[in-house]
């Protein structure tokens, strides 16, 4: 296991470096945007004296590297700082927004994995058949629709026309779980594209694995086709899918931003949009750290899964 441990340590160190790089990059990009929190706050009343006063009040008149260092020093004590705009701790922003976003993401993932695997395996066993072609064209078609358009379409049909589901989550606050109907459309929108990409990946992996020598060997031993499919081929197909799944997580975040805006769910995507618009650096930085950690941990977990199921395929550290 030392090999695994050494690999883990290396990966964790790399992850820390990646997070630091993300934070630096986000800081630099936000700084590079035209205007700062003071101009954003001044809005349509950009009286230079007023902007200067706001800037002084926010201590934005200090050099950028100094502000970054102060923030980083706080981070080492687990302090993410306070919002420039409201003066409230960044952790409250993250805490308030985390629940709804986590709920959306975990529901999506919980449905995504079985659906994508099931679809992938189903069509792989009928490769080239009518079902395969039908599902391939449907998944390609759905994949091509942007989330925003799909969301608008679903709301129009299922909420406004048929009146089956609520059009938005307005008024439900954060108790979304008490109102499951509210979650149906957002999760459908979030699922739409990852299901398509993932099931296509599983299908390709399965077809390769079923045609591989070890599957043929298993058949020669007289194992049932079902057993070959699920015990011998699927694990090999899972490795690339798991890694792809980890990569869809960051992209799930983009979907979350769209879905939160469309359905008025006040989660992390909303916090990020507002944070960027307000040039509220501490808030944006705090989110960068959180997203960075999540991405690193998930990719690490995916690589672990890949190593476990498919030790022969060399997983790059």
């Amino acid at each position, binding site marked *: 296991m030392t090999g695994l441990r050494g690999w883990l340590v290396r990966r964790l160190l790399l992850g820390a470096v990646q997070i630091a790089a993300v934070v630096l990059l986000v800081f630099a990009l936000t700084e590079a945007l035209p*205007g700062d929190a003071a101009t954003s706050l001044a*809005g349509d009343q950009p009286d230079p004296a007023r902007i200067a006063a706001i800037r002084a009040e926010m201590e934005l008149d200090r050099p950028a590297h100094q502000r970054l260092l102060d923030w980083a020093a706080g981070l080492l004590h687990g302090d993410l700082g306070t919002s420039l705009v409201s003066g*409230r701790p960044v952790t409250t922003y993250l805490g308030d927004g985390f629940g709804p976003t986590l709920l959306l993401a975990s529901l999506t993932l919980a449905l995504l994995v079985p659906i994508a695997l099931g679809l992938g395996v189903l069509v792989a066993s009928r490769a080239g058949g009518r079902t395969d072609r039908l599902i391939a064209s449907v998944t390609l078609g759905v994949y091509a629709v942007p989330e925003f358009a799909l969301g608008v379409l679903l709301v129009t049909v299922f909420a406004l026309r048929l009146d089956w589901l*609520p059009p938005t989550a307005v008024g439900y606050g954060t108790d979304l779980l008490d109102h499951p109907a509210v979650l149906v459309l957002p999760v459908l929108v979030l699922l739409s594209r990852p299901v398509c990409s993932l099931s296509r990946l599983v299908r390709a992996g399965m077809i390769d694995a079923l045609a591989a020598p070890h599957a043929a060997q298993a058949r020669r031993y007289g194992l049932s086709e079902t057993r070959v499919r699920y015990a011998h081929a699927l694990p090999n197909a899972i490795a690339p899918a798991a890694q792809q799944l980890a990569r869809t997580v960051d992209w799930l975040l983009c979907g979350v931003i769209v879905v939160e805006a469309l359905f008025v769910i006040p989660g992390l995507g909303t916090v990020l*949009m507002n944070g960027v*618009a307000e040039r509220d650096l501490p808030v944006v930085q705090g989110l960068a750290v959180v997203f960075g950690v999540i991405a690193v941990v998930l990719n690490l977990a995916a690589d672990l899964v890949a190593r476990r199921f498919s030790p022969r395929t060399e997983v790059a550290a």
Partner: protein
Amino acid sequence: MTHTPDNERHPGLHRRGFLAATGGLGIGIGALAVTGCGDSGSGTAESGTKGGKPQRGGRLRAAFAGGGASETLDPHLGNLFADAARAKALFDKLADFGADLSPRPRLAARWEPNAALDRWTITLRQAEFHDGRPVTAEDVLYSYRRIADPKKAFRAKASLEPIDLDASRATGPRTLEFRLKRPTAEFPNILAAFGAYIVPKGSGEKGEFDRRPIGSGPFRFESFAPGRSAVFRRNEEYWDGAPYLDELEFVVANEESARINALLGGQIEYAHELNPTTARAHQDGGRIEIVRLRNSAMQAFAMKTDRAPFDDKRVREAFFLIADRKELIDGALSGAGEIGNDLFGKGYTYYADGLPQREQDLDRARHLLKKAGAEDLRITLDTSDVAAGFTEAAGIFRDQAAKAGVRIKVRTGSKDSYWADILDSGTLCCYRSGAMPIESHISQRLLTDSTTNATHWRHKDFDALYQQAQSTRDDQRRAALYERMQRRLHAEGGFLVWGFADWIVGTARTVRGVERQAPANTLDWARFDKVWLATA
């Protein structure tokens, strides 16, 4: 934003977003602005003042674009329409604006100037804060001093600048004397300024307004979750009559599509700021009411008058003549507005409505450009999706200018810093403004020392006319001075005012008492103490 009360920001303080605030995934952070011209909005007039006898009860949910988790209930910090609507439910100002943007008494029952117009005696009406304390002169002075704190940057600070707060004093429990730095005939406009709310003496410690704001307004505080919802309940003791609604809830929905969907789905009863296309689709649909607040937002192109080519007034006049205003209204505002005549404040007090309406005249425009030596003019027009219709207006105007031989290049800038960016840089930009008195428009934007002078209009003689108006007691003589100022602006000013946009609000069919003659930012706009829910 987003923008804004005063100008349209959408967002304002918050603003927002990296997608357009119309159509796309925008976050309105932004923030932005009818007047009594006599014609009420189209559509069935079920709401408005008709609708039968008011009845008490119910909860009204109103959706606004808001500021996310950074929102605050501090009435002096407000910047967005959502902030203004919430502040007006909890707090009162001394005065507020009628549909013609003239000041109406609120907490101040009377105001009396001295002969020189630089001392004003204010008599307060009898009113109580939500905790039972009376509203006193001391509370008023405390509130204004808080706004004017030199270390802070409260929005209303610039409006209160004419007041010498150190020399002003309470002369009794409900009387106070404001001493001004100079004669100010229209001092009551200051009392009605955006954000000049009266709070109890000593209030406003860090975060206090978000935990338990105490005001004198028609609703009391119930609960607040920044960026999500604020719940208020009826103030039975309100001096202007208790509201009909039991409860009022403000919810935040930054996407226009989310606001209209929630309204159509019965999740809310009032949706602020809808797109013209949405309004058209539901105008006669019967599921919801569309309320058009006319003359709410001036739409303009601002020319920098201190630099080439616009330092030549012939070029400015040529640009006035290039604009096909009807086409701009139809294209950029989907027809939801009326044409402008290069002057701010159509339908407001002192508006010079006697001046001839400017029409497109490309031949004369070409002739003027030639005389000014600017036949092959190339110019950059700055725009941004900070406000609905901006990018469309820029494209349409570019094509109109091409017919006069002017080549315009449209440059799209960041919406979050747009207003600051266009203040001093560039030569030509899209501009808009919410409702305010014509006096405020001039003092904030058209005097040598104005803080937001986007057209760089700096003329001593013009300044003198304004000062003269502020020293003139007689209304008619003052109106004549405003007429002179406006003639000048109409002839050679820097604002090409092509239109006035409707401000569009949607309500459920059960909502009654929504005032239609109320440009955004005026007293009756987003006013929920006079609204009731009819039993459907």
